[in-house]
């Protein structure tokens, strides 16, 4: 699976995404130095908005963009519409099939392949944007991946505010400062349940590092 048009992608991030992130929105990034500069690595973030991926990818140097791939639902982004076109060509998503194993195909196999090619993957273990600015339950696929590839660092990230900028179902973004808090890589864990608990705890701890008011 190609990662879209490499040149168009750089132009898109340089001229559109970065100015929007810097001026219209504004990002408070904590622990930027913890962002991996080389793959393989998996970034696990909470998910509230289509802008989550743009915000996370905008943190990487333009030269590194080709190796950063956001894992996204095939049923949503492989459609033949504007969102799908942008996702495939400008963002260069890595599509996976949602809804678990069907037949013999392993839905997470494309992730393992990409990691074997030293990619940095952006994964949203909640599996959906859900209710804006509310954290959903994490799906366990990521723990399967980390058991299979224990040497690949899993980096937890907490995002806040992007669900206010552009929640699910909204079309007009609203200017709002967003927070990105990057964590230390998760350690090794015996069981899949322990890995998931550690990830959940890590994201909760990161959320505590940034003060924000309730949105209700």
């Amino acid at each position, binding site marked *: 699976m190609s990662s879209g048009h490499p040149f168009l992608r750089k132009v898109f991030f340089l001229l559109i995404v970065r100015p929007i992130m810097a001026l219209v929105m504004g990002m408070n990034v904590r622990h930027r130095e913890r962002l991996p500069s080389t793959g393989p690595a998996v970034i696990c973030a909470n998910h509230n908005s289509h802008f989550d991926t743009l915000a996370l990818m905008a943190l990487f140097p333009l030269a590194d963009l080709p190796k950063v791939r956001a894992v996204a639902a095939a049923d949503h982004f492989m459609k033949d519409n504007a969102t799908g076109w942008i996702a495939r060509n400008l963002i260069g998503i890595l599509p996976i099939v949602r809804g678990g194993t069907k037949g013999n195909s392993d839905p997470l196999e494309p992730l393992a392949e990409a990691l074997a090619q030293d990619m940095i993957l952006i994964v949203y273990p909640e599996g959906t944007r859900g209710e804006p600015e509310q954290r959903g339950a994490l799906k366990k696929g990521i723990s399967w991946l980390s058991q299979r590839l224990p040497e690949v660092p899993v980096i937890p990230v907490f995002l806040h505010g992007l669900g206010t900028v552009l929640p699910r179902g909204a079309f007009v973004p609203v200017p709002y400062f967003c927070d990105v808090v990057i964590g230390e890589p998760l350690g090794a864990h015996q069981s899949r349940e322990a890995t998931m608990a550690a990830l959940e705890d890590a994201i909760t701890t990161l959320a505590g590092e940034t003060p924000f*008011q309730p949105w209700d």
Partner: protein
Amino acid sequence: MTIAGYAFSPVGTTLVVLGAVLGVATVLIGAMRAAGKPQAGELMARIGTWWVLFAFVAIALAIGRTGGIVLLALVSFLALKEYFSLIPTRRADRLVLLVAYLAIPIQYVLIDHGQYGIFIVFIPVYMLMAVPAAMVIRGETDGFLRATATIHWGLMACVFAVGHAAALLTIDDKSVSNGEFDVRYGAALFLVLLILTGLNDVAQYVSGKLFGQTRISPTVSPNKTREGFIGGVIVTAVASAILAPLLTPFSIGFAAAIGAALAIVGFFGDLTLSALKRDLGIKDTGTMLPGHGGILDRIDSLVFTAPLFFHLTRYFYF
């Protein structure tokens, strides 16, 4: 106007002197850092930010009236965005915030047109109607009063109050009773406001560090002292009296009085933001300006000084 012409105009000369003062401060802080003083790193970050702000103001004033108005509209936008990101807001009001943001271009266009009668009531009266009207259309009544009051407070502080600094730039077009020398009063008065407001912040900080004994507001901002406050008032009044003959039509006495008045309200602007931050349980309003915090941390005193300076100037001189 050529660059040389700009440099030799009263505004340009003032900027050159200001740049020299910043240069001396930078060298002094550099010496402190070389001597291993612990606060030097923080001060260096602060002076770096002052340089950036100085560059923005110098470029804006070189462009002229439009440059200054666009710069302040941008400041209003960044400040309002910071404010909306700090306060509790309601889900239902997501698009209401867009209506509030829309007040920024409208207000600055009204200011640019020199329409005092309408720009002075647009936010206090018409945005006071527009924001709740947008909320009523959304139909959410839970927390209605808190939401409409907090949003309007942000508009008043970040757009209406700050906009008065831009309104100074439009004084250019007015004839001046004291016409002995050729000064574009708009840009000059704007620069005087920024210098006095910034100088007061620095003077209060420095004299507080040097002579601070008695806490003046222990519950709101424990670092503020009576000595720091008095130092700020004296330094700002003296600086105002020195700048007045060069850049304003003010008499020396009026200039000293306006300097002292700016120092006093600037102090309360600073404390007001401190109280707001304490209420919200945060230390800084953001991370945009290294050493200072967010935009609101920097403009807190300007929110109070800009309207007072504008109205005193307008009432007594134009």
